[in-house]
């Protein structure tokens, strides 16, 4: 299935440069990488010959750390993984623990979890659009997207007490009940989003330079998307219908009406459009739920100290970047024996060399930008 990949061996890395080639480092400190990603790029003039991502600059050994934290504690560390989908990361961990405990989550908590997840998804996509436009040299969309994102952050702050690392999901439900103003504020956000998103579309989607920069750039075929293990909007833009919310519904997504946004082009523009359409779908989901939040408990009764039975548990959720899998091996104690996260960013990054090889260095920014990389998610 791997159409053009070569396995990197030490002798490939030490290949001497040919005449006219030069190696440049993009990162670890570089405006385009949005974090400490280090790409070693071999160029011939402006054409990319090879890209080699060097990882590990922000490795904090979250997986190892989790082994010494209890089942209540380790969830909070995952907010720092993909910090733009903190809610959804926490949700995946909470669900995995609940699976081990065989705990029923109250309906109210389920609905709150979905609303929070979708708000997070919108906030993440908003930030991504701004950052990607910045990669392509347009600064202004960043401020327009941050206006909407700020509203979401304010809503989060009111209910969860934090703007970025919310730590709101706990095994059995959510940590606190919703703030009394929550429903009204989310409703006003929906109105704001619908009226303002057209501004953004005028500025970015229909911009001829933006289209020239993204259409047909960084093409990833369906077969390659599957073989590289790409998930999320990156895979869906190539036509892989792998939305976990549809395929393996969790937390009550099966009861909701929403579309899986697919595109067949697989280029940067398709990835952009898929994310824009996903934001509309998220709004659609929130609209279905916001008037129908059931009354009742927001958290199931659990013991103060959680112990999981001996065994292995796996859950998967759809974060803003793709499939996040949480795998817990329990020996029956209060802390996990081993935890493994399957993060979407890592697989998506692995396709970068394949997508950007042979294109101009300007295209690399369009390709890398639309992969929506969050470096702590890759390094963990």
């Amino acid at each position, binding site marked *: 299935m791997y159409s053009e990949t070569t396995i990197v061996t030490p002798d490939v890395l030490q290949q001497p440069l040919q005449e006219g080639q*030069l190696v*440049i480092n993009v990162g670890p400190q*570089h*405006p*385009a990488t949005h974090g400490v990603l280090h790409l070693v790029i071999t160029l011939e003039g*402006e054409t990319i010959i090879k890209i080699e991502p060097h990882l590990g600059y922000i490795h904090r050994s979250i997986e190892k750390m989790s082994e010494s934290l209890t089942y209540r504690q380790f969830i909070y560390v995952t907010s720092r993984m993909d910090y733009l989908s903190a809610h959804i990361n926490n949700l995946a961990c909470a669900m995995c623990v609940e699976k081990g405990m065989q705990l029923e989550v109250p309906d109210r908590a389920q609905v709150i979890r979905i609303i929070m997840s979708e708000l997070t998804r919108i906030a993440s996509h908003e930030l991504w659009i701004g950052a990607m*436009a*910045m*990669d*392509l*040299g*347009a*600064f*202004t969309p*960043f*401020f*327009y997207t941050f*206006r909407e994102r700020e509203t979401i952050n304010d809503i989060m702050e009111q209910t969860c007490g934090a703007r970025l690392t919310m730590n709101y999901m706990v095994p059995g439900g959510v940590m606190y009940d919703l703030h009394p103003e929550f429903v009204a504020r989310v409703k006003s956000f929906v109105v704001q989003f619908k009226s303002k998103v057209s501004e953004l579309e005028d*500025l970015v989607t229909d*911009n001829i*330079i*933006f289209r*020239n*920069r993204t259409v047909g750039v960084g093409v990833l075929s369906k077969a390659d998307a599957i073989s590289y293990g790409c998930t999320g909007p990156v895979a869906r833009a190539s036509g892989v219908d792998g939305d976990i919310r549809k395929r393996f519904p969790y937390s009550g997504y099966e009861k909701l009406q929403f579309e899986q946004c697919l595109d067949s082009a697989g280029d940067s523009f398709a990835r952009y459009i898929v994310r824009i359409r996903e934001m509309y779908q998220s709004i659609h989901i929130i609209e279905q739920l916001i008037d129908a939040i059931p009354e009742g408990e927001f958290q199931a009764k659990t013991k103060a100290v959680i112990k999981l039975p001996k065994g292995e548990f796996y859950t998967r959720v759809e974060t803003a970047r793709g499939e996040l899998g949480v795998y817990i091996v329990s020996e029956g104690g209060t802390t996990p024996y081993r935890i493994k996260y399957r993060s979407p960013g890592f697989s998506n990054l692995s396709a970068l060399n394949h997508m950007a090889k042979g294109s*101009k*260095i*300007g*295209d*690399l*920014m369009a390709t890398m930008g639309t992969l929506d990389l969050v470096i702590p998610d890759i390094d963990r």
Partner: protein
Amino acid sequence: MFSFQQLAQQTHAWLQQHTGSFTVLVECAIVAVFAITLFAVLGLVLVLLERKVAAHIQIRVGPNRVGPAGLLQTVADTLKLLMKEGLVPNLADKFLFNLAPFIVMMVAMLLLAPVAFARGIQIWDINIGVLYISAISSISVIGILMAGWSSNNKYAMLGAMRSGAQIVSYELSAGFSVLCIVVLSGSLRISDIIAAQENGWWIFKGHIPVLISFVIFIIAVTAETNRAPFDLAEAESELTAGFHTEYSGMRFALFFLAEYINIFIVCAIGATLFLGGWMPLHIAHWEGFNHVMDYIPSSVWFMGKTFALILLIMWFRWTFPRLRVDQLLTLEWKYLLPIGLFNLLLVAIIAIMGWHF
């Protein structure tokens, strides 16, 4: 009415009376002081203007801490840059590295010479003014290439190469659109070109071909001054800062200042050629209207037109993403240059047949 021409003549007479044979020397010194002051003031004003325009487009306030409404922000920035250490990279070619910003700056200064700021205010009304501008402005690419090459930095070199390809290409289009006006006016002298627009600016008199050449001119000069959407030479998400990656302190400030002065100059030239320079808006046979327009000072007309064009170019920068390097060259060689050539032919026909108003 107050006239700068009169003032200049009076000053000249007074100087001749008092300094005798040193008159030219003293006048040169006065002009140099004026030019340098103008430089500094323009740099400060334009940087602040750009930041305010950007802030307005980006729904934020912009600099508002230093001085009233942030007016002294650029002064503070300049002081900071003056006090910073100017680093020279280890294996850089020190001579060329130090020389490059001065070449870029010198070009910007030389270009001020034939610009007519108001009726009678012009440093040097040379008979080949337009040719002089085209010739001098193409030197700045040498400074940029020098900066990129001597920095011993791959980003800088890539940026300089991009800049070289870009400026050399777009120079042609800018030249052809300027030629259109030369053909219509029948002179290369700036004052003649302005005088030819006494009863209407070329953009109104020259039919659609002049409008086309105006659009091409604006696109080409945006590219020549390395402004977004053509800022590939300093594409920050690709090449960190392009050709001036290694520059710091005052050397960087010179590049920065030269960029803004260049914007002012190309806009001033655009205003002179297409919008009549300091010439007020005149409409033939509307005597009353023309008299009213005459009462607005010529310097206000010139600055108004120039700053309108500057704002247009700033608007581009904060709205468009950046082009890719091959798209940039495609735009020039496949679209602008053929259109410009054909357009010149049309303008020549119009000029020969006398079809313009």
